[in-house]
């Protein structure tokens, strides 16, 4: 069956509660170790090997075998691409023996590669090729299970970056620029980090604050939270806490954006198991139910550079849409793991989602309060990308663990019954709403 592009996407206001609210559950997660780069030698640390590692871990967590999986939703993403996120095509030459005899398995991992190389994935009836990045991928998985395309979906998200840098190739390395880049790259503006910096500068002007005052405490807190995952980049490779002084002493990447406002490029893979709520009842772990998922872009860009007004309106809309479909109110949300691929996303999302009552301009005071996991406002308890590296999975893993009551050192001391998790860069509306209780 061929479905229209974006068939899973919930991107409209006014559609009411998601019809499948609470009928899909997440029952397993897995995460490979997070490395800075693949070393080009260790065949047990390739992106492909890590995909199988994460998938097996997620299946074990759910108490399932590969043979139980009938849906594989694998996103062949690569972070090192030229301009748009496509594979950097940067694997060493010549290639290795099969299965590492092409880019597939080294710089990307497709569903086809995983099906062929992971033992036991023999009962797939749904293995789509066009899978979006993890924000919408999680929504796609929820919708696929809800609509009966599969009963047990294995979601695999690869964060490959052999180059260890973002988007330094392709047109960015050339003499000419075309398409949208003719309006931006001519002056050196080459991506979200720059537009986000401009928006945050406007934020500081409008709300009478400074970059470091708003962002230093929240970045430091994320690093602390990230160190409480055993698999995170910082736990494995730089196991010491960042301080406010470290943050303020760090070099600028795009002044006033500092090094620690940017997430580390990494090589890692995460995996998740989605199934029906009915089937989840008898599985190994306490089910974490999906209340809603949203996606799509925030809205049309008015001019060359997005403005604070635009960004706030896009994220405000994402919040309205998500709350509407989930049936939640801001005061119902216990765990809040928004996207932080650049730190300035954090004040915008906090205020748009009105988490813990935050209003426009409140982020500085909020982030300078007690946002630790054991305090009253445990913001980004998963540590986000800034705390673990750009896996884009910590938000989801933490949401699941918190709602299970299995977050260990990170377990919040406040109520943990509902969660919002996201990979939603810029004005993206890709948020996932979770709960451990659908009886109320």
């Amino acid at each position: 069956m061929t479905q229209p592009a974006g068939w899973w996407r919930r991107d409209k206001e006014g559609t009411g509660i998601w019809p499948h609210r609470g009928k899909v559950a997440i029952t397993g997660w897995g995460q490979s170790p997070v490395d800075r780069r693949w070393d080009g030698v260790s065949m047990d640390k390739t992106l492909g090997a890590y995909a199988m590692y994460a998938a097996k871990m997620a299946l074990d967590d759910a108490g399932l075998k590969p043979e139980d999986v009938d849906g594989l939703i694998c996103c062949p993403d690569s972070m090192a691409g030229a301009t748009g996120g496509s594979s950097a095509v940067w694997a060493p030459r010549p290639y290795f023996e099969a299965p590492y005899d092409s880019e597939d398995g080294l710089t990307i991992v497709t569903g086809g590669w995983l099906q062929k190389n992971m033992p036991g994935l023999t009962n797939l009836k749904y293995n789509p090729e066009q899978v979006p990045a993890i924000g919408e991928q999680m929504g796609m998985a929820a919708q696929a299970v809800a609509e009966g395309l599969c009963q047990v979906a294995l979601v695999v998200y690869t964060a490959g970056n052999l180059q260890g840098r973002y988007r330094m190739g392709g047109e960015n390395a050339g003499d000419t620029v075309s398409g949208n880049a003719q309006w931006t790259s001519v002056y050196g503006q080459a991506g979200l980090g720059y537009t986000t910096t401009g928006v945050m500068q406007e934020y500081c002007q409008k709300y009478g604050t400074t970059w470091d005052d708003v962002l230093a405490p929240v970045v430091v807190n994320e690093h602390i939270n990230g160190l409480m995952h055993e698999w995170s980049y910082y736990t494995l490779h730089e196991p010491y806490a960042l301080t406010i002084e470290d943050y303020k002493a760090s070099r600028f990447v795009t002044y006033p954006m500092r090094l620690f406002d940017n997430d580390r490029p990494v090589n890692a893979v995460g995996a998740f198991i989605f199934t029906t709520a009915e089937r989840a009842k008898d599985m190994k772990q306490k089910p974490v139910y999906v209340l809603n998922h949203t996606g799509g872009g925030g809205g049309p860009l008015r001019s060359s550079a997005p403005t604070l007004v635009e960004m706030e309106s896009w994220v405000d809309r994402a919040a309205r849409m998500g709350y509407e479909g989930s049936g939640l109110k801001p005061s119902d949300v216990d765990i809040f793991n928004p996207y932080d691929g650049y730190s300035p996303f954090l004040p915008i999302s906090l205020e748009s989602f009105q988490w813990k009552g935050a209003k426009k301009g409140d982020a500085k005071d909020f982030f300078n309060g007690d946002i630790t996991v054991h305090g009253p406002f445990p913001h980004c308890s998963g540590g986000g990308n800034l705390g673990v590296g750009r896996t884009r999975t910590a938000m989801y893993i933490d949401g699941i663990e918190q709602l299970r009551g299995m977050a260990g050192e990170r377990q919040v001391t406040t109520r943990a019954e509902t969660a919002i998790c996201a990979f939603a860069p810029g004005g993206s509306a890709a948020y996932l709403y979770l709960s451990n209780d659908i009886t109320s």
Partner: protein
Amino acid sequence: MPKPIPVPDELSKPFWDAANEGRLVIHHCKDCDTLQHPPRPRCRDCGSENLEWKEVSGKGRISTCMVIDDGRIGRMHPDQPFNLATIILDEDPRVNMYSNIPGVPVRQAPEGAAVEVFFEEVSPTQKVPEWRLVG
């Protein structure tokens, strides 16, 4: 500073041709009297295809200015750090353009300051709009 050279397409060619003539032109909707930049096939506000190129004053002001310390555009790496400012046009502050505001030292660009356009040669056949402080 060497900049990447824009490759005009069918929609953008009049803009870049005008730049070569030392004129700043912006897409203008004749139905709802709105300026839009970058150009689009239809008006962003009313959807009309009744669009024209309108020469503007080339006056504006600096909205924000960051500094590219560690950027992605290879051709500009030798000149890092450099300014990256957002300029809003006097005719309509909703219309913005980027600039490196040449001649202004990094981290010293005055936000809100008045600027005017000039045209910088990035190849023997192409000029691009740039902005400098007024007065």
